[in-house]
């Protein structure tokens, strides 16, 4: 069990913000911190790692106290057994992939874990390459493996996937899950992608302005609508075209996809280019409902 009680005044974009959380995380679980940028997610990880000073609070990891401001206990980052995967990977440019992992070994640790991890992330071919020769996804895998070399008590991943394309992302999610399951390691993942949170985690903490506003099972917490037989998605109107008869075609951008939706001319009046709309359909009958007007019109 991991107990985090953290208080810290942070310098946010619009002035000071008080980060104040009190949470527990089950041993061996994979949890996510979800929220907008600036909500304090990365600061929490940095405080657990000992890279950021905590004003008041305590950190207990599996019965060991890493921090207790009241008793004056504060372990250095070196003394906390953590795996930390930085957003910008932070691979050492002067070392090859394998050397990066070997560097992470503790004194007297059996080095066979290095080969084992290289095998898991499937980078045997590239193990003697320097990091600058690797693609973003490969660097990420090395950073993940390096964070695992010490067999840390807690693995923390700071938005590891945000810089990657969709395809690479889902592959990396699988690597993370594989490692999480194989080593049964308590893992904290930062994400601002709903589908990622739902796919990856057992428990989600929703952060806003330094506070935990919601927590629980990701599927029930983050899907606003109950699941039913309807198809639903949200998109932005990028064009409205008049056709013959009384038909119009509205083109929507949703994610990276364009979708044409036929609509009667008299209904089109209320829509403008730039509006955000929710499309729902009971298979054959698309219904368009406005959820936000374009701000400039």
């Amino acid at each position, binding site marked *: 069990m991991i107990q985090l009680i953290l208080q810290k005044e942070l310098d946010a974009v619009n002035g000071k913000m008080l980060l104040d959380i009190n949470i527990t995380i089950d041993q061996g679980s994979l949890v996510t911190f979800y929220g907008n940028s600036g909500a304090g997610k990365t600061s929490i990880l940095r405080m657990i*790692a*000992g*890279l950021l000073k905590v004003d008041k609070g305590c950190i207990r990891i599996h019965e060991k106290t890493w921090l207790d401001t009241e008793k004056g206990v504060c372990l*250095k*980052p*070196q*003394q*906390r*057994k*953590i*795996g*930390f995967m*930085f957003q*910008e990977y*932070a691979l*050492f*440019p*002067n070392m090859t992939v394998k050397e990066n992992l070997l*560097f*992470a070994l*503790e004194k007297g640790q059996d080095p066979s874990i290095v080969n084992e991890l290289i095998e898991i992330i499937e980078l045997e071919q590239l193990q003697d390459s*320097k990091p*600058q020769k690797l693609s973003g996804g490969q660097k990420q895998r090395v950073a993940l493996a*390096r964070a695992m*070399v*010490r067999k840390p008590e807690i693995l923390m991943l700071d938005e590891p996937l945000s810089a990657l394309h969709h395809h690479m992302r889902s592959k990396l999610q699988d690597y993370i899950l594989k490692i999480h399951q194989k080593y049964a390691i308590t893992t904290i993942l930062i994400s601002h992608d709903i589908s990622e949170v739902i796919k990856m985690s057992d428990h989600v903490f929703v952060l806003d302005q330094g506070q935990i506003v919601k927590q629980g099972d990701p599927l029930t917490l983050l899907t606003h609508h109950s699941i039913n037989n309807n198809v639903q998605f949200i998109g932005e109107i990028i064009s409205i075209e008049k056709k013959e008869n009384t038909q119009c075609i509205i083109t929507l951008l949703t994610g990276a996809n364009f979708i044409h939706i036929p609509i009667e001319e008299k209904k089109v009046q209320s829509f403008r280019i730039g509006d955000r709309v929710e499309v729902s359909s009971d298979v054959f009958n698309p219904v368009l409902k406005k959820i936000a007007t374009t701000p400039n019109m």
Partner: protein
Amino acid sequence: MDWQPLLLTFKLALVTTILLLIVSIPLAYWLAYSKSKIKPIIETFVSMPLVLPPTVIGFYLLLVFSPSSMIGHWLHTTLGIQLIFSFKGLVIASIIYSLPFMVHPIQAGFANLSSTLIEASYVLGKSKMRTLFKILLPNIKPSLLTGIILAFAHTIGEFGVVLMIGGNIPGKTKVASIAIYDEVEALNYDSANMYSFILFIITFFILLLVYVINGSYLKRFWR
């Protein structure tokens, strides 16, 4: 032609550069990462040889090193070291005089490294020392080389400081730049020209090396 002044010049530059490197790495590390309030003052002291006339540095070192001063007296009576008109004195003066040329490139090298590299090493359980030698220094090799070369070249070009505290003792303190001045005074333009030409060529190639390295023409070599 007497080669002794040239050899002495390079001996002085070599010894100075090696000692400077040892002194400058911790100093540059502190300047790059410290948040101390006295940092600007230390930075100013390190940079002052860039703008002060060498004779000013030489003059004050002369006062400090002279046996009539407290420090000079103590060095002389307890350690038996005399710094004035000696090679040791020249080395110490050269270290002070060339300090910014070694410290500045190394400090800039540290400052340009991403701080997450250091943090990544710390969270992997590595000490500050190990991080310095295994992560920081190997990743600022071009800066180290620039510092080494600039400090070496600058020491070769020393004149005012040497003249003030070293004087003109053949084999001990008569370096090439002093020898040139000496020869010109004695109207031996030919040997003055020989010394000058050799220094000219050597400094040209030393500085060329710096620009080749900084222009990343050698990047492949360093990676």
